[in-house]
C-alpha cells in the first residue's frame, strides 16, 4: 500500500510559483505517470514528495500519514533521479547496493538482493565495472536498480529514460512495468514525452504551469479529457485545435467542419474543437488542403497540411500517401463524431460531437 495525496501544495522560488495549490492523488499499486511540458513543475513535485524540498504551503500524505515534515531518509521512498548520479569512484555493484549499505544490511543479503534486481534489469555482467565503462542505457539501468533496491512501497522515477534511443527506451519501459507488477508497489513516473506517458501509464496526471490540469486513467485522459490543455498535451501526433462557435441549437461551426453536439448543453459562444489525428481522413472528395510536411514512420505517415490558414496534422497509412510530396493537394474530411468541444476561455469541456 502507498496511496499518495497532495493537499493544496504550492512551491515558490523567489516569489515565483513553480507549483500552485496542487491537490492530487496517486493511487496505490498503480503506475501513475506525471506528464507535462518542460517547466510545468513535475520535478519540483517529485522533489517535494521525496523530501528534498519542503513545500511553501500544503500537506503531503502517504497512506493517510502526514509526511510533509518527515526527513527524506525516513520516508521510505525509492527514487531514481533524472541524471544517473552513479558514483564514478565505485563499482556498479556498490552503486546499486548503496541504499542497503546505508541501512547496515548484511553483506550476504546485499549480494543476494543486488543480484536479484540486476537479473531483472539484465545488468548482472556489469556489476564489477565502473560507471564510466557503461553505455548510457546501462547506466540508466544501474540507476534504476539502485532506486528500486530500497525497501519501499513507493517509487518515484524522474524522467529516467530521457536521452535514450527509442529501442532502449522501449525495452526499459517494459522492464519497469514488469518490475512494478512484481513488486506490487506504487510507481510515480515523470516524463515530458507524451508518447512515453501514453505507453507507460495506468493513470495519468497532467501538469501544466504548476497546476494539475487532469488526473485520471490514461484512456480517459486521451479519449475524454476534461480540459483543453490535457487534450493538447497528451497524444502523439498532437491534436488539432480548431476555433469554432457553438450556437444555442447545439450546432458547432469551425469553418472546417460543422457538427451537432451529442448531448445538449447550456453553453453558447466561442469554443475550441479538438480533433485527434485519427479523426481526420485523407479522402479524394474532401475539403482542399496542401501538404506542408510529411514524416514517414514506416507503416504510418504523419502529414502536416494547411487548410483554411491553419496547419493540421493527421496520421495515415504510408502507402495511401506514397505519391504525395510537399505542396501536393491533400483533400481531407474531419469526422464530426467524437470531436471534443471546450470553452475557449476556461478550457473546460463543454461536450462532444
Amino acid at each position, binding site marked *: 500500500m502507498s496511496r499518495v495525496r497532495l493537499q493544496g501544495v504550492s512551491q515558490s522560488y523567489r516569489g515565483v510559483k513553480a507549483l500552485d495549490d496542487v491537490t492530487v492523488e496517486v493511487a496505490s499499486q498503480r503506475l501513475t505517470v506525471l506528464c507535462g511540458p518542460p517547466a510545468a513543475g513535475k520535478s519540483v513535485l517529485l522533489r517535494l514528495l521525496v*523530501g528534498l524540498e519542503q513545500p511553501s504551503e500544503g500537506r503531503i500524505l502517504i497512506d493517510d500519514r502526514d509526511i510533509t515534515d518527515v526527513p527524506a531518509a525516513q520516508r521510505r521512498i525509492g527514487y531514481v533521479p533524472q541524471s544517473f548520479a552513479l558514483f*564514478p569512484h565505485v563499482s556498479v555493484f556498490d552503486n546499486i547496493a548503496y*541504499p542497503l549499505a546505508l541501512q547496515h544490511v548484511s553483506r550476504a543479503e546485499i549480494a543476494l538482493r543486488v543480484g536479484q534486481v540486476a537479473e531483472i534489469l539484465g545488468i548482472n555482467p556489469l556489476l564489477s565495472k565502473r560507471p564510466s565503462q557503461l553505455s548510457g542505457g546501462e547506466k540508466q539501468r544501474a540507476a534504476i536498480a539502485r532506486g528500486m533496491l530500497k525497501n519501499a512501497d513507493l517509487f518515484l522515477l524522474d524522467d529516467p529514460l530521457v536521452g535514450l534511443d527509442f529501442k532502449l527506451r522501449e525495452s526499459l519501459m517494459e522492464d519497469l512495468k514488469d518490475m512494478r507488477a512484481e513488486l506490487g508497489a506504487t510507481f510515480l513516473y515523470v516524463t515530458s514525452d507524451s508518447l512515453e506517458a501514453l505507453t507507460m501509464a495506468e493513470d495519468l496526471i497532467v501538469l501544466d504551469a504548476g497546476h494539475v490540469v487532469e488526473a485520471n486513467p490514461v484512456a480517459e485522459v486521451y479519449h475524454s479529457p476534461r480540459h483543453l490543455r490535457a487534450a493538447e498535451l497528451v497524444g502523439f501526433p498532437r491534436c488539432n485545435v480548431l476555433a469554432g462557435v457553438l450556437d444555442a441549437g447545439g450546432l458547432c461551426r469551425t469553418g472546417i467542419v460543422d457538427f451537432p453536439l451529442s448531448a445538449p448543453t447550456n453553453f453558447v459562444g466561442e469554443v475550441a474543437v479538438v480533433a485527434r489525428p485519427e479523426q481526420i481522413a485523407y479522402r479524394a472528395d474532401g475539403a482542399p488542403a496542401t501538404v506542408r510536411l510529411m514524416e514517414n514512420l514506416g507503416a504510418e505517415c504523419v502529414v502536416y497540411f494547411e487548410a483554411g490558414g491553419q496547419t493540421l496534422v493527421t496520421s495515415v497509412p504510408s502507402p495511401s500517401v506514397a505519391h504525395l510530396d510537399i505542396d501536393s493537394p491533400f483533400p481531407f474530411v474531419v469526422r464530426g463524431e467524437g470531436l471534443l468541444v471546450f470553452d475557449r476561455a476556461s478550457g473546460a469541456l463543454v461536450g462532444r460531437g
Partner: protein
Amino acid sequence: MRPTSWREHAYHALLWLVALIFFAPIFWIVLSSFKTADQILAVPPKLIFTPTIANYTKLFSSASFPHQLFNSVVLSVAAVLIAVAVSFLAAFSFSRFKPPGTNFLMFLLLSIRMLPGSAAILPVYLMYVGFGWKDTYAGMILFYAMFSIPFSVWILKGFIDGVSPRFDETGIVNGASWLRIITRTILPQVMPGVIAASIFNFIFVWNEFLFNYIIGGISTSNIPVALASGLYSNGGVDWTFISALTSVYIVPPILVVYFFQRYLLVGMTFGTVRGEV
C-alpha cells in the same frame, strides 16, 4: 604508423633545448655541491673533477641544519593538511549552500592572497608577539595554514562545483549523513583538486622566507632562512654551503612535482579542465 616529419624532429629538438636551458641552473648547483670551493669558482668551469661529499658531510654535521630541515618538513606538511581540510569544508559550503554574498566572499578570499606579504608582516608580527606565538610550531603552522586557505578554497570550489548535487541528494534520500556524503561521495571525486591544492600549498610553505624570518626564530626556522643566514662565511659567499643546501632543498618539491604533475594542470584551471587524472 605515420613517419615523423623533419618539422616534428625540429620541434622536439627545440623542446629539448628549452628544457635543458631551464634545467641548467639545477645541474650547475647539484654539480657544484660535489666540488671544492676552488673548483666551483674556477674559470672556465671544471666539468671533469673528483667529486667530494665533504660539503654534505659538513652540512649535515652542522648544529642547525638537520633541525631546520625537520622544521621545513613539519611546517609544510602540517600546514598543508590543516589548510586543505579547512578549505575543503569551506569550499563545500560555498559550492552547495551558496550563502548570501558568496561571490564577494570569494573575491575577498582571493584578494587576501594577492596582498604582498610585506603589507601584512607588521600586524602579524605584533599579533604574534602579543599572543606569545612567535617562534612556536603551533603559531607558524597556523599562519601558514591561514595563508594557504584562500587559494585552496578557490581551487576546491571549482572542483566541487563540478560534482553534481544529485550525488548529495542520492545520499540524503537514502539516509546518508552529511559527513558521509562529504567524505565518501564528494571527496573521492575531487581528489585531483585536493592533491593540486596540496601541491601548491606545499611549494608555497616550503619556499616561504619572509614570515619565517620575522615571526619564526631559532626553534622554527626553515631552510630558506638557513640559506640566508648561512650565506656568508669567512668574508665571502660560501658556495659550497649554498650548493649542498640547495641540492637538498630542491629534492622534495622536485619529487612532488614529478609524481603529481598531472594534477597541477587541473589545479591551475580550478577544475574546469578535468584531464585524464
